């Protein structure tokens, strides 16, 4: 039953990829939700997560340290970017978007300087074959999928239930009002950036042993995240998770009979048609944000 095995593997791969993309795209969604800007540098934060992991593992510090340090470092980077650059424009969409693109290129070049033009790789710290439904699957990939899913669900719960989540949503609804209630909106935005950076960094660290660590990997992640946030609705975490899983499954199933680039093109075309049909961002059409 070789055919069935391929199908099963494709579905598992799709789920794992989907949860990983969801982890990356959640950060994009959170930042867009709070300040209504598209952070074009978000994919580069993911690349930084993988880069930091590669540096740590190459220095002999072990993969476990990467899982803790990479999210912290990248989270710090995101906060720093917000503090030094984006905050200066009062998060006005136009200049902020331009600046995030500039930052994208700068981080990419920094990545090139550190990693070099050739892709790097680190080996998974553990990788026992796991029996799933009658065939064996990579234990490490299973770990990536489960860790990503758990983190996404945790963030979603934080957003819905905690005081922090309430504050984040309040800043999104009405920044002026929040300010007049004596809450420092700037600090809430900062926390949003820290969270988004941490998630991207974690995704980078998690995926670093199974992907090529390359200075251009961030842009691919950004494109995938765009597809996801377009389909799932900007600013909705649950929509992001659902759309990411759908995207992961779609791409791994079409990859059974198409080249990977072709299956990515298919998913992009689906996202584009969806945008056009729903007329997103237009008065009276689709969702407003």
């Amino acid at each position, binding site marked *: 039953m070789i055919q069935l095995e391929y199908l099963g593997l494709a579905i598992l791969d799709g789920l794992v990829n989907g949860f990983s993309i969801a982890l990356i795209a959640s950060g994009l969604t959170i930042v867009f939700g709070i300040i*209504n*800007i*598209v952070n074009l540098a978000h994919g580069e934060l993911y690349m930084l997560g993988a880069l930091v992991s590669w540096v740590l593992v190459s220095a002999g510090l072990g993969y476990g340290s990467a899982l803790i340090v990479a999210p912290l470092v990248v989270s710090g980077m995101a906060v720093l970017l917000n503090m030094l*650059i984006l905050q*200066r*424009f009062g998060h*006005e*969409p*136009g*200049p*902020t*978007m*331009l*600046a995030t*693109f*500039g*930052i*994208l*290129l*700068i981080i*990419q*070049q920094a990545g*090139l*300087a550190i990693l070099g033009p050739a892709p790097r790789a680190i080996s998974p710290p553990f990788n026992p074959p796991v029996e799933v439904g009658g065939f064996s699957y990579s234990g490490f990939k299973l770990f990536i999928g489960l860790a990503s899913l758990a983190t996404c669900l945790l963030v979603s719960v934080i957003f819905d239930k905690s005081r922090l989540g309430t504050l984040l949503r309040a800043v999104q609804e009405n920044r002026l009002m929040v300010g007049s209630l004596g809450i420092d909106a700037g600090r809430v935005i900062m926390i949003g950036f820290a969270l988004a950076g941490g998630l991207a960094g974690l995704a980078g660290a998690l995926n670093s042993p199974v992907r090529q660590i390359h200075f251009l990997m961030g*842009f691919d992640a950004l*494109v995938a995240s*765009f*597809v996801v946030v*377009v389909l799932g609705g*900007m600013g909705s975490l649950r929509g992001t998770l659902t759309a990411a899983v759908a995207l992961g499954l779609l791409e791994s199933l079409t990859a059974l009979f198409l*080249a990977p*680039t*072709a299956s*990515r*093109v298919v998913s*992009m*075309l689906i*996202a*584009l*048609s969806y*945008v*056009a049909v729903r*007329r*997103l*961002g*237009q*008065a009276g059409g689709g969702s*407003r*944000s």
Partner: protein
Amino acid sequence: MNGLARTIVTFSIPAVLACIYPILPEYAKFFLARVMILSVYAYGYAICFQMLGMLSLGHAALFAAGMYGAGLYTIYASPSPLSALLMGVAAALAFSLAMGLLSTRVGGPFLTITTLLAAQALYLVALHFNEITGGEQGIVLGREATLVWPLSPWLGESDSRYLFSLVTLVIAVTGVWALSRSRLGKLFIAVRDDEEKLESLGYNTATLKLLGFALSGVYSGTAGALQALLYSYVGAGYAGILNSVEPVLWVLVGGPLIQVGPLLGCMLVNIIADLARGMLRGHVLIVGLGLVLIAFAAGRLSWAYRLLRRSTGLVS
């Protein structure tokens, strides 16, 4: 500035470029010819961004459609440069209509996202069919397929390149100059400034935006086709995101006057990038730093601030 002064300013740079030509050293000739081609692209981008207020991040695809349309035609159909030029422009027009139909119907950041996705799709398609397109490495076209070839008995390669670039630039500048004085140009600007009001006056703003996007595509495609036919090279790199974002920088650096700004900004950015090539890690870093700096400057430049605000805000 009144109409006459504006006209004089508009054509002064191309006139200077024509006058200094005999005294230019070889490298400057090569460099300026390239910048003139890129300026045609800059003008095309300005029609979309500066006139209509649409912040596209997918124009590299329109440039690349022109480049591939012309380049692949000379490789696989016929090595006739003039029909290749037409093919390139036609390909860019077709692609800009398709992309415009998708993107101009959605608002604010979604236009930016969809144009980016559409351009990335074309880039991936070019990579996927790398046996035909040459992928990232690209293909070098035969000498007899270039526009320079028919002139070669009389003019050197760099001279005819300069000549072709200059003529195209003058046509492009004249086009934008005429557009900015025309009724259509004023309608474009009205779309940017108050789409709803224009709509309530009975204008079909969707058609206007699509028209502007297509016109922008023709300019970009012409530049792309000339890239292929003057420098005899096609490559997927031109469809990449960097080529989409550079014109944003050119337009913003160039200033508020659309007749001269794109040319001025394109020249300035490319000269700086060329000078700094030895000092820093090259072109990409300059563009990145330039974008951050211009974002800071936009707070002080009221026209840039307003333009960015209109092109990124959500319609509520």
